[in-house]
C-alpha cells in the first residue's frame, strides 16, 4: 500500500495535467510553424552573413533550451534529493532526453553554421567545448539513471551528478565573456536589453516559445509513462514476493 500512497501525488498531478496534453501539442505545432515560416521566408537575409543567418533561428533557441532544460533538471534533482519527492526525480528523468536532443541540435546547427562563418566545422573554443560537455553530461545522467537494478538508487545517483554538472551552465553562458572566443557574445539575453533588430527578434521569440511548449508537452507525456511503469514494477515485485 505504501507504494500506492507514494504515487498518489503523481496521480493527482497527472489528473490535472493530462487534459493539457492535446492543447500543448496543438500550440507547439502552431507556434513552430509560424516561427519557421517567419524565420525561413519572411525575415530578411543578413547583409554580412547572407542566407546562412537563418540557421540562427534554429540554433540560438536550441542552445537556450539546452541550458534551460539542464537547469530544470538540476533543480528537480535537488528537490528530489532533499525532500525525497518521487515526482521531482521523475520530472528530472523525463527532462534529460529532451535536453540532450536540444543540445545535439545546437551542436549540429552550430557546426553547420561554423563551416561558412569560421571556415571550420569545429574549433576547441571554450563555448563549443562546454556545450559538448553539456551533451556528455546529459548522456551520463541517463546512463547512470539506468545503471542500477534499484530504480531509486539510480535516481539518487543521477541527481547528484545533475547537481555537480550544473557548474557547467554558467560556464557556457559566460564563456564568451571570460575568454574571448570565436563565438558570438550574447545579444538577446542581456542585462541591458537586446541589441538585435526587431525583424529578427520576432521569429527568434516564436521559435523559442515553440521549443518551450514542445518541452512541456513531451515532459508531461514522459512523466505519465514513467509513473505508470513505476506502478507496474511495484505490482510485479509485490506479486513476486507474496
Amino acid at each position: 500500500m505504501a507504494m500506492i500512497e507514494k504515487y498518489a501525488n503523481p496521480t493527482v498531478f497527472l489528473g490535472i495535467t493530462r487534459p493539457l496534453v492535446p492543447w500543448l501539442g496543438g500550440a507547439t505545432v502552431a507556434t513552430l510553424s509560424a516561427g519557421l515560416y517567419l524565420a525561413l521566408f519572411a525575415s530578411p537575409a543578413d547583409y554580412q552573413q547572407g542566407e546562412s543567418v537563418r540557421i540562427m533561428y534554429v540554433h540560438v533557441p536550441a542552445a537556450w533550451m539546452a541550458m534551460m532544460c539542464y537547469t530544470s533538471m538540476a533543480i528537480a534533482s535537488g528537490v528530489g534529493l532533499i525532500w525525497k519527492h518521487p515526482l521531482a526525480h521523475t520530472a528530472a528523468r523525463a527532462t534529460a532526453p529532451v535536453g540532450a536532443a536540444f543540445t545535439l541540435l545546437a551542436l549540429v546547427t552550430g557546426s553547420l553554421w561554423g563551416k561558412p562563418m569560421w571556415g571550420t566545422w569545429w574549433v576547441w573554443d571554450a563555448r563549443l567545448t562546454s556545450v559538448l560537455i553539456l551533451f556528455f553530461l546529459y548522456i551520463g545522467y541517463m546512463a547512470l539513471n539506468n545503471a542500477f537494478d534499484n530504480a531509486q538508487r539510480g535516481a539518487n545517483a543521477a541527481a547528484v551528478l545533475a547537481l555537480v554538472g550544473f557548474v557547467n551552465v554558467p560556464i557556457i553562458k559566460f564563456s564568451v565573456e571570460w575568454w574571448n572566443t570565436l563565438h558570438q557574445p550574447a545579444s538577446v539575453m542581456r542585462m541591458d536589453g537586446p541589441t538585435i533588430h526587431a525583424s529578427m527578434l520576432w521569429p527568434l521569440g516564436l521559435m523559442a516559445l515553440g521549443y518551450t511548449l514542445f518541452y512541456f508537452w513531451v515532459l508531461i507525456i514522459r512523466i505519465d509513462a514513467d509513473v505508470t511503469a513505476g506502478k507496474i514494477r511495484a505490482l510485479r515485485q509485490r506479486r513476486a514476493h507474496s
Partner: protein
Amino acid sequence: MGRFFCVLRRDLHLALRQGMDSFMVVMFFVIAVVLFPFGVGPEPNTLARIAAGVIWVAALLSSMLSLERLFLGDYEDGSLELLVLSPATLETLVLAKIAAHWLTTGLPLIVAAPFLAILLNMDGEGFVTLVAALALGTPTLSLLGAVGAALVLGSRRGGVLLSLLILPLFIPILIFGVSAVDAAVGGYPVKPQFMILGGFLALALPLCPWAAAAGLRQSLE
C-alpha cells in the same frame, strides 16, 4: 582533523602495502609513455612535437584507471559503512581519501613526468611548466573522479559508466594543460592557462568532496 590524518595515513599505508592500485598507476603512466617511441618510431622531432600531449593523455588515462577502485575496496569489505558511521563529517574523510589518492597517484606522476619529457625529447622550456601544470591539474582530476567513483558504486557497469561520467569533465583540464606547455615551448605567457587550471581546482575543492559524500551515502541504502 585527527580523523582526516587517520584515514590519510591508512590509505597511504594500504597503497604502499598492497600496491595494487596506486603503484600500478605510476607504472602504467611510465609504460604508456615509454611505449610511444616503440610505436611511433624514435624520430626526435615527431616525439618532441607530441610530447606534451602524450604525457597529459597518459596522466589522464592512468588517473581514470585508478579512480574506479577509489571507494570500491571499502565498499565491498564493509569499511565504507564504518567510515560513514564514524563520528566525523563524511566530507572530511572523503577529502582524506582523495588526498591519499592524489599523493599515491598524482604526485609520483609529477615526479616521473620530467624524466619522461626528456625521453620524448621535449623542449627544455616546457619542463617547469609541465610540472607546474600537472601539479595544478592532477588534484582536480582526483577530485572530479572521486565524485564519479562514488556515484557508480554498486552499479552494473561501473567502469564504463565512470569513464563516461568523468572523461568529459577531464577534457578541459587536458586542453588547458597541454596548451600551457605548448605556450611555454613557443615562448608565450602561460598565466592565462594557469589561471584557468587554478580556477578549476578552486571550484572542485569544496564542491567535489561534498558531492562524493552524498554519492557514498546513497550507495549504502
